[in-house]
Structure formats: structure tokens, C-alpha cells
């Protein structure tokens, strides 16, 4: 109470200051209305023939989306397109982003971008440099999906029109999300990419996207990088093997050959662990240990399910998974000599002394090492029916 | 530049009014003006685009001179 007078004065002063201040400010920095931005749903980067960066954006027209989804269509008049695709060239990514302003009406807002599609040409030249922009800009969403386009330019992919979702980018992201139940594409978020790029002893691997029809895309397979440059692809099954080894399979369907047919096994859970065994202070083998838990999903062949058969089935499932892993290992070791599994990281963590010397030519060492893959499969449930439909027997 | 001057003018005006009303001793004025003059001078220089070498740099130089840092 003693200082009431003084306190009161500061109070007035403060209020006056706070009220007058906004008036003094000539403009409101960073204040951008939602009306004044273009909401980007997807992005693509590619290298042109001339060696420049070609940035493609897929921009959403919210009003059009709203009217298509809520079905409020006023009838008669043609529906406005929910998205438009626009491209712009530039020496750098950022320049291209800014250059875009001369083609479109409002500022681009990149934070909502769901996918980033990297062109094949650019990937072959190396993606390290262009990623820096996406890492540095404060408006980029780190959980954005990154894909490498195979056989089509990013623009072609972004221009796909699909009936499944008004926004193609969301559709593409959806197909990638489905990877959880397929296990045939590597789901790569931007943050994973940034992390992997910096981490030692691991090469990049990014999911692959290709165009299969006029308005259809397919996300399957993996692009393998070496030192930031695209060196090749893994097919769907190799990708799955790779994901099994790196513990990224949540669910998958593995077909096991059976008597005159196939049995589809649904992988419910899978645990993968990679390791490098050392002998006499030198790496001796690459070990991959995988444990899968599966259910019998479909029995499309002859025979019946009994405990003995189940054990056999477990073995052949393990064999199947092992085959896939070996395929992936083989390709990355022998064909690409690129350690996408991250065996090197493992060495770095547990044998830092050895790693110091070996880091430089780890690729060579990696491609030489023998692989030791152990898969342990377990069948948990067999579904609602006990045995398959009896056929002509 | 003009904005800097205006802001300082308002600040000093407010405080001085208070000080004079309360009949503060001279040392309050002295210390107050010491700080304000230093601030004003530096901010005018900064506003003019000429950054004088900062205390942080002096300290760094001093430490290097003594030999604490390389």
C-alpha cells in the first residue's frame, strides 16, 4: 500500500505504452491472413536439363474442397478444381520458392505440405544440398513424407487426379501410410532423412513412387542412396526384407509355398535386430536376427492344419522371410555397396575405436562381410476355420 | 533514427517528470543520465548502421591479451 501512487503510475504508463505501441508500428510483421496464402499440399523438386532446380507445388483451393466435400454444390456451374499445380525454376530451392510468386497470386505456405517428391535426375546428382533448405526453413513440417519418383517427373506425379481424395497429395500420403499393413515401401519422413544424413555409418534409403496409369500412382519399393546420390532401387520384396532387418515392419503378408498352392501368412508383429559380430577386433559377419509372429491368413492349397504342419509352416515362413532379407542384403552389399541397414552405426556405437579407422572405407568392408541371417517365426493363430476347403480328393 | 529519438524522448520525459515531482537528489539524475546517454548514443550509432565494437568484443580481446584464451 505504501507505494500505491508509484504503482498506479507504472500501471498507467504500461497500459498506455501497450496500447500506443501497436499504433506506432507501421505494419504488423508476420501477420498474414489465411486468405493471403496458398496452402501447399505437396512439393516436388527435380533437376532440369540445364542443371537448375525445378520446384513444383501442388496448391489447395480450400473453397473448392469445401464445396465438393460438403456437397453444397450450387448445381449447374462447373466445379472449380480443388488443386492446381505450378512449377518454377531457380538456381536454388529457395530462389525457386520465391520465383513462384511471379506465377501465382499469393504467398506459398509450405508447412502444410504432406509430401515431398524428389525427381530421379536430382537424386542421381545428390540430394544433400537441396535438403538443407527444408531443414532450415522454420515453416517446414518435419513429418512430411519424402519419396523418390521413379520413371516420372515429380510434376507428372503431382498432376495426378484421383477420385479417392480431392487432394492428390493426401491420397499419396495415404498410400504411403498404408505401408503399415504392406511393408513394401520405406516410409521416410523428412526428419528421418535429416537424421540419417547426419548419422555416421548409415546410407539413405527413401521410399519410391512411380506412375502406373493416367491417374494412378504406386508407392512401392525403395530408392537406395550412396553418399547422398541415388544408386539404385529395391523392389517391393527386397524392401520388405530390408524393413524386416531394420525392425520397421508392423504388418505384412508373406506367401509361403504349400502343397499345390500358397499360404498367405499375416505378420502380426516383427522384431528385427542387426549387429556386426567382431572377431579379433575385426568385423567378422553381419548378423541379422528377426523374430516374426504371424497368423494364417489364407490357405490356398492342399493339406490341412495340424501341429506338425504348423511347425513346418513356421520353418518355411522363416525361410521365406530370410530369403527376402538376403535378397535385400545381397543387393545393397554387392550391387550398390551401400550400407542402408546401418551396420556402420552399430559398429560406431559399440566399437568406436575400430570405427575411427574404418569409417573411410566402411563401404568396402561392408560389401565384403558375410551375412548371417537368423529368422525365428512363430504362428500364433490360424483364423476362424481349422482347415482349408477340401478340393477334389 | 527518428523513431529512436522519439522513443528515448518519451522514456526520459516520463521518468524526469516523476523525478522532478518527487524532488530527487542530484545523484539519481546523474546515474539516470549516465545510463540513458550511453544507451542513446549507442542506439543512434546502431540506427545509423555503424556498430561500434561491443563490450563482448572488448572482453574477448582482454581475455586474449591476458592469455586466458588462445
Amino acid at each position, binding site marked *: 500500500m505504501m*507505494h500505491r501512487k*508509484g*504503482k498506479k503510475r*507504472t500501471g498507467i504508463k*504500461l497500459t498506455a*505504452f501497450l496500447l500506443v*505501441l501497436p499504433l506506432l*508500428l507501421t505494419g504488423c*510483421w*508476420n501477420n498474414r491472413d489465411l486468405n493471403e496464402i496458398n496452402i501447399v499440399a505437396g512439393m516436388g523438386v527435380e533437376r532440369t536439363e540445364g542443371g537448375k532446380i525445378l520446384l513444383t507445388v501442388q496448391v489447395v483451393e480450400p473453397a473448392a474442397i469445401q464445396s465438393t466435400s460438403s456437397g453444397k454444390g450450387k448445381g449447374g456451374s462447373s466445379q472449380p478444381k480443388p488443386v492446381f499445380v505450378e512449377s518454377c525454376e531457380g538456381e536454388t530451392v529457395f530462389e525457386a520458392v520465391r520465383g513462384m510468386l511471379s506465377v501465382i497470386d499469393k504467398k506459398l505456405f509450405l508447412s502444410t505440405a504432406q509430401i515431398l517428391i524428389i525427381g530421379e535426375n536430382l537424386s542421381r546428382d545428390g540430394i544433400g544440398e537441396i535438403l538443407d533448405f527444408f531443414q532450415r526453413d*522454420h515453416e517446414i*513440417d*518435419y*513429418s512430411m513424407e519424402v519419396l523418390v519418383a521413379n520413371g516420372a517427373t515429380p510434376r507428372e506425379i503431382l498432376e495426378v487426379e484421383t477420385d479417392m481424395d480431392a487432394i492428390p497429395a493426401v491420397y499419396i500420403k495415404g498410400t504411403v501410410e498404408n505401408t503399415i499393413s504392406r511393408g513394401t515401401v520405406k516410409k521416410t519422413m523428412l*526428419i528421418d532423412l*535429416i*537424421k540419417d544424413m*547426419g*548419422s*555416421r555409418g548409415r546410407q539413405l534409403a527413401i521410399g519410391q513412387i512411380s506412375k502406373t496409369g493416367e491417374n494412378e500412382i504406386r508407392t512401392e519399393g525403395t530408392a537406395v542412396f550412396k553418399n547422398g546420390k541415388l544408386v539404385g532401387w529395391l523392389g517391393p520384396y527386397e524392401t520388405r526384407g530390408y524393413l524386416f532387418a531394420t525392425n520397421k515392419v508392423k504388418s505384412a503378408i508373406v506367401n509361403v509355398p504349400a502343397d499345390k498352392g500358397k499360404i498367405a501368412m499375416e505378420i502380426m508383429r516383427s522384431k528385427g535386430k542387426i549387429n556386426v559380430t567382431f572377431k579379433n577386433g575385426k568385423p567378422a559377419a553381419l548378423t541379422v536376427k528377426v523374430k516374426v509372429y504371424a497368423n494364417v491368413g489364407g490357405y490356398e492349397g492342399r493339406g490341412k492344419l495340424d501341429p506338425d504342419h504348423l511347425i513346418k509352416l513356421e520353418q518355411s515362413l522363416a525361410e521365406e522371410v530370410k530369403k527376402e532379407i538376403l535378397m535385400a542384403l545381397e543387393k545393397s552389399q554387392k550391387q550398390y555397396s551401400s550400407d542402408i541397414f546401418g551396420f556402420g552405426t552399430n559398429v*560406431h*556405437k*559399440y566399437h*568406436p575405436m575400430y570405427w575411427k579407422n574404418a569409417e573411410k572405407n566402411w563401404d568396402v568392408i561392408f560389401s565384403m562381410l558375410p551375412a548371417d541371417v537368423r529368422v525365428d517365426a512363430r504362428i500364433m493363430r490360424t483364423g476362424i476355420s481349422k482347415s482349408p476347403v477340401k478340393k477334389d480328393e | 533514427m527518428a523513431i529512436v529519438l522519439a*522513443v528515448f524522448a518519451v*522514456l526520459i520525459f516520463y*521518468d524526469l517528470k516523476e*523525478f522532478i515531482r518527487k524532488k*530527487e*537528489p542530484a*545523484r*539519481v539524475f546523474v*546515474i*539516470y543520465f549516465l*545510463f*540513458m546517454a*550511453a*544507451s542513446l548514443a*549507442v*542506439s543512434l550509432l*546502431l540506427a545509423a548502421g555503424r*556498430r*561500434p565494437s*561491443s*563490450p*563482448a568484443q572488448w*572482453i*574477448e580481446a582482454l*581475455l586474449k591479451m591476458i592469455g*586466458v*584464451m588462445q
Partner: protein
Amino acid sequence: MEKEKISGIQLFLLLLGFLFGSTVILGPAMGAKNDAWLAIILGGATGVLLMQVYVAISLLNPSKALVDILREKMGKVAGNIIAILYIWYFIHLASLVLRDFGEFICTVTFPETPMVVVIAIFAFILVYAVNSGIEVLGRLGELLVPIIPLVTLIISLSIITVRDFTAFLPVLENGMSPVLKAAFNFVTFPFGETIAFLMLFPHLNKKDKLKNVVFLSAVTSTIVVIIVFFRDIIVLGSDLMSRSTFTPHLSSLLIPGLNIEPLIDINLLIGGGIKISVCIYAAARALSQITGIDDYRKLTGAIATFCVVLSIWGFGNVLELFIWSEKVWPYYSFPFQIAIPLLLLLLSLIKKGKSPNAGTKK
């Protein structure tokens, strides 16, 4: 003069807020990369000890603030000179934290806003807080500081799904020296900075609590920083962690499906706000004691203005700021945080030994 009293819990929370300060944003001891947790533990332990030194000084000179102690133990002239140096140090510290705050806000949220505007408004609000008195500051701390660990906890829990628990391996890859260096950095920032609290300790209403309060706050903040570190390294990996400008902010961006970036702003606003307020209060209080001005409130405005200018003046850009904070700050702080306090402790102990009266009273 010492009429205003704060309770033990208020001091605890003020200290906690001060220690969190910009620490929660900058992620100290990141120089040691993978081994930062070791550096944090080492630095934390040393920091706890160092803060106990300050407590000992305060307990040996009951109800005396830093300036009085300096003048009493070192003589009037030398004491005053050192006190003036301390005032400079507090002002400098406040301006550094202001700059951290400004850089963070302008990098992360408002890239088009001039930094000086953000800093000036913030400083103005803090002057209002400081002028309300230490009691109000204490009460404010009670309301606001608990938010910081809460937010940290929320963020940590929500990104625990993105994980790689072996990320902190290998241990001691580059030997001990970067760890020791980072630990030293961690002692000087933030623990040593609590030297400013020597101006506040006399306000505590129950002296016997001082020791525990200070100890607890130092330990708590060390634990929280360790949690923050492990969270960041698990989520980001050591490489990205050491490359990012504001590590905890980056990891908060990774919360799946939700972006709670503004919460981090709040952390810095509270922690940094308390740190700056305490520094400005300490500087103004010390200055008013030296010059014999009855009320420190008359000086806060001028000091805060100077802090704002100094914060802009100090560094050309954010990189300069970071490099300076990492390389120069520890050495610069050494005399203020460690040398002079130890000397004061020694002098206080000697004086206490000499006068048996004081000895028996304790």
C-alpha cells in the same frame, strides 16, 4: 529496506526459473555431443557445490546483500569497485538473456519482426514486474515457474514414441576433454549465474531454509536438464542435435500430429523473464546501495533501457552470440562466479574465526 519477504517455496521457484532460464532452450553442454549427459552430471554436481558456497557466504553474513558483504570484507574502495563490476556483470547477463530470447523468437516464430521490438516490449514488461517488488516477483514465480517442468514433461512424454534409446552411444568417443569443457560451461551457465541471488537471499523469511532450498533447486534443475538432454538425443540423434540452433524446440516439432511450438515460447518467456528480472533487480539494488539512493525502482527503467541497447549492440548475429557464449563466457564469468565468491567465503570465515562473539552466536 529489507521489509519485503519471500517464502522458502518462492525462493525455490525463483531459483528454478532462473536456472531454467534460457537453459531449456539452448541446451547447454551440447559441445560434448553424445557425452553431454556426463557433462551435465559433472557440471550439475559442481554447480550444486558452487551454489552452496554462495549460501555459505550469505549465512556467514546474515541479512546482508552482496554489496554490503563486499564493502565490509574488502574495504570501501575495493569493495565498491568490485561491486560496480558486479553491476556490470548483472546488466550484461540480463542483456545476453534478452538477446537469446529475441533471437529465439525471431528465428522460430517471427522472422519478419525486428528483434529490438520484441526485446523492448519484453524488457518493458519486466520492468513493471521488477518495480512491483521482490514479493510480487516471488508470487509471480509461484504461479508461472511450475509451468516449465510441466511443459517439458508433456513434450517429453509425447515424443517418447519416436525413439532410439541407444543414441547416446558410444560413450567418451572423443575422450574426456570435451566433456570437462562442457561441464565447465554448464557450471558457468546457469549455476554460477545465481551469484545474482546473493542480492535476494536476505529477503528470505526463514534463514534456516536457505541451504535446503538452494540445494533442491540446483538438483531439480540438473535433473530436468538431463531429462531434456536424453529426450533430445533419443529423438534427434547426436548429429542433428549438435547442428540445430535451438535443440529443444526442434524436438518439440516432432510430436506426431501436433505442433506445440508456442509452448516452448512460453518456457523461455517464463524462465528468461525471471532470469532477467532477477538480474535487473540485483543490478538496480546494488547500484542504489552503492550510491545511497533510497529506492532501487528509480533506476530500473534506465538499467533496463541500457540492457535492451546492449543486447542489440553486443552481437552482429546469432552465430556470434552462440560462439561467444560458448567460448568467452566461461572465462569471463570465472572471476565473478568462482574467484571472488571463494575469496569472500575465505574472508568471511577468517573474520568469523577472529571475532569469538560471532562464532558463539552461530
